[in-house]
């Protein structure tokens, strides 16, 4: 069935689209958590690309990379949550716009 036999190019396009959504999201959104999610989206878009290329390549290298990326992303989540949380607790807001003490 053609529906289920999408070519790798489709995955790559999807990956690029996801990445772009994430990248644009970081630029336009203001809530720290949302920004954070956008970054995660970008990482996962990269994962998708890695796995797709791995598929084209015919070995599992790319999938292994995706594994590492997942770990890194998780560590990033932990660190990010910790920072966001401490900010939230000390000033009751998670909006990046409210973080404006540092200006030149």
């Amino acid at each position, binding site marked *: *069935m053609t529906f*289920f036999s999408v070519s790798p190019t489709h995955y790559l396009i999807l990956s690029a689209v996801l990445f772009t959504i994430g990248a644009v999201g970081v630029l336009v959104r203001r809530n720290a958590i949302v920004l954070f999610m956008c970054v995660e989206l970008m990482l996962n878009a990269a994962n998708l690309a890695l796995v797709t290329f791995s598929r084209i390549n015919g070995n599992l290298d790319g999938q292994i990379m995706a*594994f590492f990326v*997942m*770990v890194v992303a*998780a*560590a990033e*989540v*932990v660190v990010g*949550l*910790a920072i966001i*949380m401490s900010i*939230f*607790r000390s000033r*009751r807001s998670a909006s990046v716009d409210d973080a404006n003490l540092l200006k030149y």
Partner: protein
Amino acid sequence: MSLSPYVPIIGLFAIAAAFALFSVASARIAGPRRYNKAKLDAYECGIEPSPEPVGGGRIPIKFYLTAMLFIVFDIEIIFLFPWAVSFDLLGAFGFVEMVLFIAAVFVAYAYVWRRGGLDWD
């Protein structure tokens, strides 16, 4: 003509989704409607509902801590799964690597434990 083994999963998903959506949608149609202001308020055992749930959206820190711990250990599991599946192939090398890995996670675990991160109060 055969289908990919993943298709039935999607099939079951679709049926369940159809059923669930039908249910929630039909409830709007089947049930009666009698407007009552109090009925639409948040339920707090009869007292005046607080304007915002849980102190203005501030969620106890413990939940975040648990979430972070979960992520750490879930990641550990991610690595354990493939290792376990191909355990026999990897042999002693894999075992040593995994001992090191688990030891490293255990270091974090011991730290969290000692610092009271696992206590819920």
